[in-house]
């Protein structure tokens, strides 16, 4: 008989081992899936994980793209992870991302076609504030009226995407766009364009900010009393209260930080890789970031790696579609497996497997 026995303390070894084991298990299970689809599993896995990094034709392009794709995921996930650690569930990062992008873009477009150094910084600030304010709605409703922040923040995503539809056809529509929805393209407005800092590296201000956020979050969680309070609240809310944590303030802080981070990601994306506000510019980063946060065990360095890994599966997945005609759904299943195996492997962190009947006590 196989049974699980709870470990007295979570295993340190398994905490580090599970992500690797999960990736390996995903490759095996995914390989079986691909084999059933009639593709050579080894080749598919190689295309997804190896080619974007090392293929002679693609890697020069896809390595920088890895940063471009991972940047917003990491930035949003870092913001979310603070709240998640404290048991504050902001599910609406997608909405905060959209509103941040709209606010920042509106500031930039208001100055069009002026050329001045301060336009871009102003856009970034507006983006952060936009995301922050959008996150304050569920935060204030929670602290004031005790509403559920999961529901409110999630529902506000749909409000935000309707706002996005509205401004792309009205307020922010490109006046020279022949009535088609979508704003002016920031790539053609240098003063507001979030260009690569070093050409060909994919490194734009948003990616840099994401890296800084990783460092800041690491310091906050490990070296600062606020980080201690966040961790304590998550592990034991009662103990936290006795040690002087003010829960309402903590909710406002965590929601605010995650909202601002999502808003920043939004404006960096819209002023850079995306280029314009249009109805469908948001590619679900706010939701994917939740996966990244958990895949990274809510740890800043883990999130950094998880963001890069997920970006790799996106880019490699597209390559696999292109080169082998693999359906997009198979790639999504593959990404789903990754999260599934990670959560499943968590069992080994908290439990050990015992074979044989329970010992007589």
């Amino acid at each position, binding site marked *: 008989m196989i049974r699980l026995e709870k470990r007295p303390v979570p295993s340190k070894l398994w905490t580090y081992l599970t992500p690797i084991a999960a990736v390996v298990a995903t490759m095996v299970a995914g390989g079986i899936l691909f084999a059933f689809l009639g593709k050579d599993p080894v080749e598919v896995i190689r295309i997804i994980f190896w080619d974007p990094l090392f293929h002679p034709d693609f890697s020069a392009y896809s390595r920088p793209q890895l940063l471009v794709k991972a940047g917003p995921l990491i930035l949003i996930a870092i913001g979310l992870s603070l709240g998640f650690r404290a048991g504050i569930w902001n599910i609406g990062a997608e909405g905060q991302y959209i509103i941040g992008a709209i606010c920042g873009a509106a500031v930039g477009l208001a100055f069009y076609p002026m050329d001045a150094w301060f336009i871009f910084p102003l856009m970034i600030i507006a983006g952060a504030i936009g995301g922050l304010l959008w996150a304050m709605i569920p935060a204030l409703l929670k602290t004031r009226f005790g509403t559920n922040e999961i529901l409110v923040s999630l529902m506000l995503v749909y409000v935000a995407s309707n706002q996005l539809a509205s401004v792309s056809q009205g307020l922010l529509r490109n006046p020279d766009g022949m009535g088609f*929805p979508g704003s002016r393209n920031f790539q053609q407005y240098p003063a507001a364009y979030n260009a690569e800092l070093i050409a060909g590296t994919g490194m734009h201000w948003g990616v840099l900010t994401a890296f800084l956020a990783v460092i800041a979050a690491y310091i906050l969680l490990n070296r600062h009393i606020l980080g201690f309070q966040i961790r304590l609240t998550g592990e034991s809310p009662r103990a936290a209260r006795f040690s002087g944590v003010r829960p309402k303030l903590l909710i406002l802080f965590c929601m605010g930080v995650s909202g601002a981070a999502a808003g920043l990601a939004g404006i960096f994306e819209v002023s850079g890789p995306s280029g314009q506000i249009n*109805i469908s510019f948001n590619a679900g980063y706010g939701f994917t970031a939740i996966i990244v946060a958990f895949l990274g065990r809510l740890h800043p360095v883990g999130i950094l790696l998880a963001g890069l890994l997920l970006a790799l599966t996106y880019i490699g997945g597209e390559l696999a579609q292109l080169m082998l005609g693999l359906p997009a759904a198979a790639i999504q299943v593959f990404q789903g497996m990754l999260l599934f195996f990670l959560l499943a492997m968590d069992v080994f962190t908290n439990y050990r497997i015992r074979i044989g009947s329970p010992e007589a006590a």
Partner: protein
Amino acid sequence: MKLMKSLMTAAVALGVAAPAMADTTKVGFVYVGTPGDGGWTYEHDEGRKAVEEHFGDKVETTFVENVAEGPDAERVLTQMALSGHDLIFTTSFGYMDQTNAVAAKFPDIKFEHATGYKREHPNVSTYGARFYEGRAVIGTIAGHMTESNKIGYIASFPIPEVIRGINSAYIHAKKVNPDAEMKVIWVFSWFDPAKEADAAAALIEQGVDVIMQHTDSTAPMAKAAETEGVIAFGQASDMAQFAPSPRVSSIIDNWAPYYIERTQAVMDGTWEQVDTWGGIASGMVKIGDITDAIPAEVKAEAMAIEASIADGSYHAFTGPLNKQDGTPWLAEGETAGDGDLLGMNFYVEGIEGDIPS
């Protein structure tokens, strides 16, 4: 054993691919939905298959599906360009800027963007279909067939292409049935079966008994099938699996001849930038079989309109027509120019409600 075999095939393919590349033309397609949508993307994929069938070994086609109309599109296009494609079709309006951006970086690769208007580089062509001509035909059928005098229209995005279709359908329904009203629901998506089905349900609840759609999935059809007496029209593809009820006819996009022609041009080295806008006459827009659910005289009238559009004796936008606010647009007998049509951002007189902005 099998693994070994496929490994060897892969190795052989890699080794041999390079010299064989020279006489194989590689054609890529970027899809906003999936070929399984049964509508828009399905028809593009049919076009892709037709290219494969027509050219056999001389061509290799690839596609990437479900590509979001944002930065992802630019990356997918670049990867396609890097992987040795000669010709790339981007099959949704929202790929417009990305297509042009990537085309700038790969001047030797030809790009074809569906339904757009930007051709910023000599290696970018645009192509589209005059769906509004088809709308004139099914609008006529709708006007005759509605008993509640309420025609429902599931619209995607308020861009000229969609607004043109609404206007054309309304004008022709109104012509045969002065009491006909048009109810429009905007779902802000090309492909979202859940939203499309919700929109159909909402329209039926409002008493609509004829449903048209400008979205990509068959979900509205499936919804309409649940209610007795509601008819609907296939969109982009024939959707014949929903006949006899609710599907009574359809507007079909037929991309295959264009895709074959353009691939041929790349092979011959005669590819040049064009702006193609094909309609019923050129066969890019087809009317699907009008079923027996439609009375013979209505069917005859619809087919007469189709024929008169095909031979050029009739234009779907012929005056007198006023804009929604009552200002005159086209005088008696005047027809709309393509410029007017391409930028159309107003409803014609009689349609209620506002275009979202």
